[in-house]
């Protein structure tokens, strides 16, 4: 039986954690993810879950303790945002290279500076090459559903990689929306128990974690880790299929919204996709062939699949809620453009930066993007150099 509720994104995550009942959670408060460890601590204080919470003194220690706990054989999670994720940067790589299936709830927020607490993807995008799986959500329902699927993907024998479950700070983390929850028992059955093959506290074998390895061994370890990320693609789809059987909600690498016959498409990540869908509905009513490719899985990067889904488009706007500071644009822009090139796509593309530090994106902004895409397809480079949405001035 599905349960109709109203929850913020952080509450939805906490509810999923309650249903999963993981073993260990080290965490350090940082806006806007702070509520997640608060909710978990309250559930522990009320005896609702038997997770052990470690109130660490920093995010670096949060991820370090998570690595220790996971290596010891515990199902482990943490939560963070922004500078907290940046402080973990060094040990994110250690978690991934030790092949530890840690789940991290990332409530996306701008990196400093200027210091700002609002939604931006610079934090998780900064960690995009750390070896973690990254799954993004448009709304509260999705972050709940993604959290329930996380351990199934991370702990899979052919994957064994940590996973970030990302949502947009405040926009989804704090805004209350309608949500459909699953009952506890089916969730427990779906997630299953964690039975690692090797761990520090295994009774009949000792284990050593974190070696020094000379050049003669390192490269093989890294290639094996790369293979795990490749393997994750199939596992993500398989877990999504099983989740659909349980919940009736369908997930893949990305969502295609009115994309099949679209001539002009936007590719974006996260909560902005709600605004884009609203705009599409409005423009479709006028007969405009516009669509959206909403990226759910950024790591592993489903470039080939995205390029195939965009193959009939005349012009594509790739929107990044993250500066690349590379004089060309953002990370989604760079990677998708490369994927399109490899499939010999002929569509015009433009990379647009939007929504930095929580800057609002309106339906009228998206409408303008679609209008300009039509002109771009006709050879009019109307976006200009280095386009931003909603910027008060270029100087």
């Amino acid at each position, binding site marked *: 039986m599905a349960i109709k509720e109203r929850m913020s994104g952080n509450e939805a995550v906490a509810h999923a954690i309650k249903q999963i009942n993981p073993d260990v959670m080290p965490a350090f408060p940082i806006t806007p993810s702070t509520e997640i460890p608060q909710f978990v601590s309250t559930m522990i204080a009320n005896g609702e879950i038997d997770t052990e919470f*470690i109130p660490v003194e920093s995010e670096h*220690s949060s991820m370090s303790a998570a690595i*220790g*706990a996971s290596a010891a054989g*515990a199902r482990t999670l943490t939560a963070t945002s922004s500078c907290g994720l940046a402080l973990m940067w060094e040990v994110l790589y250690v978690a991934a290279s030790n092949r530890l299936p840690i789940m991290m709830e990332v409530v996306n927020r701008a990196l400093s500076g200027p210091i700002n607490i609002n939604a931006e993807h610079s934090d998780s995008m900064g960690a995009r090459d750390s070896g973690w799986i990254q799954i993004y959500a448009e709304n509260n329902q999705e972050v709940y559903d993604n959290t329930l699927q996380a351990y199934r993907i991370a702990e899979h024998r052919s994957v064994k990689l940590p996973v970030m479950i990302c949502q947009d700070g405040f926009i989804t983390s704090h805004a209350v929306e309608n949500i459909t929850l699953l009952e506890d028992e089916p969730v427990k059955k779906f997630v299953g128990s964690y039975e690692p093959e090797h761990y520090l*506290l295994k009774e009949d074998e000792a284990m050593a974690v*974190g*070696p020094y390895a000379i050049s003669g061994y390192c490269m093989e370890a890294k290639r094996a880790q790369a293979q795990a990320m490749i393997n994750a693609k199939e596992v993500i789809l398989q877990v999504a299929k099983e989740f659909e059987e349980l919940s009736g909600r369908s997930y893949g690498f990305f969502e295609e919204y009115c994309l099949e016959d679209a001539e002009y498409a936007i590719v974006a990540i996260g909560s902005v996709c709600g605004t884009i869908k609203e705009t599409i509905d409005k423009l479709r009513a006028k007969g405009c062939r516009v669509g959206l490719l909403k990226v759910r899985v950024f790591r592993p990067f489903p470039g080939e699949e995205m390029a195939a889904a965009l193959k009939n488009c005349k012009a594509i706007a790739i929107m990044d809620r993250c500066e690349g500071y590379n004089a060309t644009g953002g990370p989604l822009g760079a990677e998708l453009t490369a994927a399109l090139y490899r499939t010999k796509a002929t569509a015009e593309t433009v990379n647009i930066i939007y929504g930095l530090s929580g800057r609002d994106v309106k339906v009228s902004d998206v409408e303008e993007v679609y209008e300009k895409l039509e002109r771009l397809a006709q050879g009019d480079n109307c976006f200009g150099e280095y386009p931003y949405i909603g910027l008060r001035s270029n100087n």
Partner: protein
Amino acid sequence: MANIPILGLEAIIEPSEPAQGGGMEKSMEQKNTFNFREIQEREERLAPGHRMCAGCGGTIAVRNVLKALHPGDKAVIGNATGCLEVSSFMYPYTAYEDSYIHNVFENAGATLSGVETAYKALKKKGKIKEDYKFITFGGDGGTYDIGLQSLSGAMERGHDMVYVCYDNGAYMNTGVQRSSATPMYADTTTTPTGKVSDGKPQTRKDLAAIIAAHNIPYVAQTTFIGNMKDLYVKAEKAIYTPGAAFLNIMAPCPRGWKYDAPDIIEICKLAVETCYWPLFEIVDGKWILSYKPKNKLPLEDFLRKQGRFKHLFKPGNEHLLEAFQNEVDKRWEELLFRCGE
């Protein structure tokens, strides 16, 4: 005199006349749990074949701390990045008989606190049955400096673990750079002596006192003396005291200190007899002196054997020796006061 079997290294210890609590051997004799032969015959938990330098103090510290684990007791060993880590766990070989985890340089405290918490969680859920002890090792770089926050957090939270610092007084793994544990005037590669430099200008950080201020049940400072009884007794207490414990072990480095490797035990003895490295413990907040030399030797006796201090013995540098002696005296008096001596 002490009825402890005299074997090998400890033979160089001259029995002191009893003074206050007695001489070095005498005072240690008061604890009757120490059977040198039985302890040395215990199975090695740090297997031979690792790549540490001959005469490395860090290795002596690890071997002897692990000897304090009662035979049959299980443990998970942690390790900060440093000489010890890169030389004792080189893929595909490990020198550790027990489960072992190295994470990065500055997070040995947090990493082992995660392991210990996983143990609590899995034990509570009935997923593991056996008892484990948790011991982590870090050099002074990973402990006094880059890992201090992580260590402080782990101690303050009271995880049931022992953090062991093998203090060799500099970043030896990267080639003898100064740390906050480096003694004043030491010649290191980032405090080199020169025309206008006398070596490290600052004094040592007092880490044992800092950790004691965390109000944990057990803190101790030791080094390699005699038949390792002081180290053994303190390690055993640290391991078997419930809650967080900290051991600071002076572990000389022949490369960084520039002495002849076989002199290590004599150097340790001189460090103690000059009161450069006093032996003490802090049990539930109470400071207890482990050994008080009857005749406190001049600091020069400890410094003279080490190349890192050779500039102090050049004519015209007498004032440096005097300043260093004054610093050691001041700290010794403070320690005596804390210990109620």
